[in-house]
């Protein structure tokens, strides 16, 4: 039997398949379809200190092999999360990564400070890259100094696994990964969504209330894979690969390109049992190909 486990810092993931932030809420609904005990972990919807209502409709648009979303970080806030969401999540034998999105470095730090005392939480994913909110979000995501300050600030208040989720909407993502590594971040997630838009030619209005949104789904997979490869070739830091994964082969591609773990996002909407099923498929692939330890494939792409 292949060893599918992955260790990043002191967190052991049963297998490299995690559920991506914003695509599974806090686990309540997805657990009807996907056994959370069978996957590597779940990343919560981005949490902010106070609850956020999110953007008015329309929040999503389908595109060719992809979708745009401009949810606007609708979330219950840290307090409510601790009260009603975490207890339920804590019942699963899986890793819980809290994704945090904030409007200021102070807010990131404050959220982490509060959440890090909870033993059920295994780590943090700092979202500096959400394209759908005015304050914070993308403004941090393409500012090296901001990413540096946020990483350092959050690192100072938690010893838990610290992942920074990077924006693909930059010229060189590896520069950002380097900063995270320099400031003591334990891993980077790549990628968040690409900025995109869509216009209703009948009304002549953008389809999304927020005008632009984040593009996800199979359409972005080649871009995400190139970003993971760029980071792998330039910076020594574990990478969590995200973007357009829709079949087990995609996961192997990400791992070969340099990912230690991967996250499933948009595909949860289409096949909410995908993550659970794909774990079995990867195990099958490894057995057929005599791969005793899956994580030995990380970065094993053969470059010319």
């Amino acid at each position, binding site marked *: 039997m292949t060893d599918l486990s992955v260790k990043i810092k002191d967190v052991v993931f049963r297998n490299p398949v995690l559920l991506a932030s914003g*695509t599974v809420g806090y686990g309540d*609904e997805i657990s009807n379809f996907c056994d959370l005990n069978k996957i590597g972990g779940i990343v919560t919807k981005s949490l902010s200190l106070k609850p956020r*209502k999110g953007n008015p409709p329309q929040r*999503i648009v*389908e595109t060719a092999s992809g979708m745009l979303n401009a*949810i606007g970080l609708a979330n219950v806030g840290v307090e409510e999360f601790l009260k009603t969401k975490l207890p339920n999540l804590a019942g699963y034998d899986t890793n819980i990564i809290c994704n945090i999105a904030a409007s200021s470095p102070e807010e990131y730090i404050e959220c982490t400070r509060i959440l890090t005392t909870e033993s059920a939480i295994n780590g943090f994913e700092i979202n500096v890259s959400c394209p759908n909110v005015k304050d914070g979000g993308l403004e941090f995501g393409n500012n090296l100094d901001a990413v540096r300050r946020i990483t350092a600030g959050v690192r100072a208040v938690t010893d838990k696994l610290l992942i920074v989720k990077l924006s693909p909407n930059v010229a060189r993502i590896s520069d950002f990964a380097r900063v995270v590594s320099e400031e003591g971040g334990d891993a980077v997630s790549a990628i968040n969504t690409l900025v995109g838009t869509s216009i209703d030619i009948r009304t002549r209005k953008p389809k999304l209330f927020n005008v632009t949104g984040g593009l996800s789904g199979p359409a972005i997979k080649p871009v995400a894979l190139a970003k993971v490869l760029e980071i792998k070739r330039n910076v020594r830091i574990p990478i969590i690969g995200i973007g357009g994964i829709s079949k087990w082969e995609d996961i192997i591609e990400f791992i070969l390109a340099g990912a230690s773990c991967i996250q499933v996002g948009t595909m949860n909407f289409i096949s909410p049992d995908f993550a659970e099923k794909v774990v079995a498929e990867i195990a099958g692939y490894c057995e057929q190909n005599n791969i005793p330890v899956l994580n030995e494939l990380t970065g094993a792409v053969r470059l010319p």
Partner: protein
Amino acid sequence: MRIEKTQIVSVSEVQSGIFILTVESEYFAAATLPGQFFNIRVSESLFPLLRRPFSISDLTGKNLSFMFDVHGEGTKILSQKRAGEWLDIIGPLGHGFGIEGEYESAIIVAGGLGVAPFPYLTKKIRNKKKIYSFIGARSSRHLVTQGIVNVYSATDDGTTGYYGNVVDLLKLKISEIPGIKKIFSCGPTPMLKSLTDWVNFVGIESEVSLECAMACGFGICQGCPAELHDGSGYKLVCKDGPVFNSQEIIIS
């Protein structure tokens, strides 16, 4: 709530451009209430990417029917399915209509394909309540009344029934409807808006079934907000709806 590969029993064009697709599923048939919906994967490939939501239209034995017209790529693919093929569907989703209660007259108000959920609703309540069905459409060709009882029809072009919109027709007829009333409605947003503006004003209990773009259909994407009247934010059409009390949400 489940994912199931159901087998298609039949797909038929019941009238020009309007299709009924029927699948068989013991579990779904037992679990589904009027007003709930299913999120259907129209293709085995990832094109189109997202599932398509459809209300349960009718339910007989183990057979569930969906009624739709060809709108874009997704519904086109659905309309070309054949009996015997398999359809990957998730459901039943959301909360259905509140069919229990003290009301005596159930008033159905539907515009266009908004009629879709009402054959099953009718089946469920026709023995307990008096039903008045106000059905509007662009023209007589577009008017769907299959499975609907006691129909008052309205068409935009006057080719059949009342010449005008269905909400105006309801206003004309409301005084003839006896007893405690409850309205169940579904249809295009402008219709729902004019209906609920009036209904909230005159104070008849009323439920609307909303449609909006959806990615997941069961509460994980936050893609389907319905704005609350009380200013407190949004509910989710897929999970908290698609049926809402017309006092609760803002239709715009």
